């Protein structure tokens, strides 16, 4: 059922497509996070701007991906920009809402104590509010990354130059459901998503040690 000879002859291609898959996903999430971070800070500071920002991100999320690729090709051609822009757009709604929720979740007494002790607004944000928002921010990144890894496969519809591991899925389909090649795209991309998920869980535990410190664990921490 699996054509091992084909697999053996395409290891280089699989490695390249895996790398491309990771590259597109990381690029999209990184750009998406940078945009979301700024917009979320603006929304958190000027609450009146949060509903429109959130609504816009939500609207972008609803645009069908294939339609978006088609629309972008006419503007940016068959470039990496065409592939990355939709991926970035789909991360915004998740990331913005999680960052704002994380900042909103900072207890009011902690904010009051920070102000009362003389932290400036910026110090309060960077030393208190953002660290305390980290669990939700990381959860947002985790969700955005996993969903982006899924979406990267569709960028293969723009041209053979993109798609990461999705290239194999589309190419196998065009060859009349050549299962070996389709699996060569599907299985690694699933593994990538699971791996990214696992990494973010580890990262969160690593950078938010206080979330595991509860009264019951005094002995362990002392």
């Amino acid at each position, binding site marked *: 059922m699996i054509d091992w000879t084909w697999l053996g002859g395409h290891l280089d291609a699989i490695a390249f497509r895996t790398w491309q898959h990771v590259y597109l996903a990381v690029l999209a999430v990184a750009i998406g996070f940078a945009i979301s971070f700024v917009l979320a800070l603006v929304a958190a500071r000027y609450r009146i701007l949060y509903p429109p920002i959130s609504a816009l991100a939500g609207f972008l999320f609803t645009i069908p991906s294939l339609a978006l690729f088609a629309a972008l090709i006419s503007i940016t051609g068959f470039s990496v920009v065409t592939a990355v822009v939709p991926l970035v757009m789909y991360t915004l709604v998740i990331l913005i809402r999680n960052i704002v929720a994380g900042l909103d979740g900072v*207890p009011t*007494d*902690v*904010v*009051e*104590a*920070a*102000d*009362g*002790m*003389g*932290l*400036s607004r910026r*110090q309060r944000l960077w030393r*208190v509010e953002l*660290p*305390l928002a*980290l669990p939700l921010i990381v959860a947002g990144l985790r969700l955005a990354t996993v969903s982006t890894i899924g979406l990267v496969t569709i960028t293969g519809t723009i041209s053979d130059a993109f798609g990461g591991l999705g290239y194999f899925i589309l190419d196998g389909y065009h060859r009349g459901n050549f299962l070996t090649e389709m699996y060569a795209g599907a299985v690694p991309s699933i593994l990538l998503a699971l791996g990214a998920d696992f990494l973010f869980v580890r990262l969160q535990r690593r950078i*938010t*040690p*206080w979330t595991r*410190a*509860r*009264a019951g*664990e*005094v002995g362990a*921490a*002392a």
Partner: protein
Amino acid sequence: MSEPGARRAAIVEYQHVSKSYATARAARGAPGAVNDLSLTVPAGKICVLVGPSGCGKTTSLKMVNRLIEPTSGRILIDGTDVAGRDATELRREIGYVIQQVGLFPHQTIGANVAVVPRLLGWPAARQRERAEELLALVGLDPALYRDRYPAQLSGGERQRVGVARALAADPPLMLMDEPFGAVDPIVRERLQNEFLRLQAELAKTILFVTHDIDEAIKLGDLVAVMQVGGHLEQFAPPAEILSAPASGFVADFVGADRGLKRLSLTRVSEVALQPVVTARVGDAAGEARARTFADPFPYLLLLDASDRPIGWVSQGHIPATGALAAALATPMSPLLDRRTTLKDALSMMLDADVQTGIVVDRTGRLRGVLSVEAIAAALRPSADPGVIAAGTSTPAASGGGS
């Protein structure tokens, strides 16, 4: 305490301070308004702002470190208007303690205590040293607590850390907003006592907000009773609040048991003690016996050679001749210190089922006796409140003795 400038204390003056809120905001539960508040907190004293919710006590407190800006009027710290100061700089010089503590959950206890020193740019080693010194000061073993997170502490422990954090940069002024309001009564009592012990050592100027009149009376050198709408009803030492409430509101607020509350506020040293017939072990019994007949109280208090009380000998048991022996003395009345509160003194006397307590000085020598009648007399409404108030400030003035 080895910090330079330790024992500094600030003078806080409210000059016609008002804070009003738009009706719409007030309806949404905005903090209480303040109406033309003028009062001066002397350096090194605890001033308690007390009143029902909505009386503006918290607003008054937060205007000092500019978390709230007054609508009109001025607040001076050591003569300087706080409105002219940079807000963050000002706040770093004022200790701030709130009911929910507000420790940073993501930082260790050591880091939490060192927040202000870090803001002030102290070297890391000095920050650490200061945090450990303060944890020890509030009764938390630094080695045990330094590296824990706030979530691992009990409510009482967290509040101690909150106090340590507020003291970190040795501020001359502390603002405390219901600091002991969120802990159970037993822990609260302990924290209050530790707080008074700390204050006796540190002598900071402290503005303290509470809705609990008992706490206000226990902790305050001065008590400001506020009324809904932000009116200051009375600003006086606690004894005066209790003995001479300035208005019906204050009288109601301190409660019908204000006479009893005064018991815990008045110390033995403030009540005139009564003399008693005494004799030392080895004195001639006959002469001592004769003296008991000249006194309405038919007992002799037997003392040792250093004038320390041994016990009572009733008139009938004193031999007509020979010397007085220690074995004649029957069980004692409770021994009272001059610093014992009348409440504790009365309680000890009731426990021992006696009418008098024996008051001794620090070395155990007899000063006189305190009777239940004398306590009752001290509380009688007709007693001049001025005498009691004066006694509070100068305990030595009215303390009698034999």
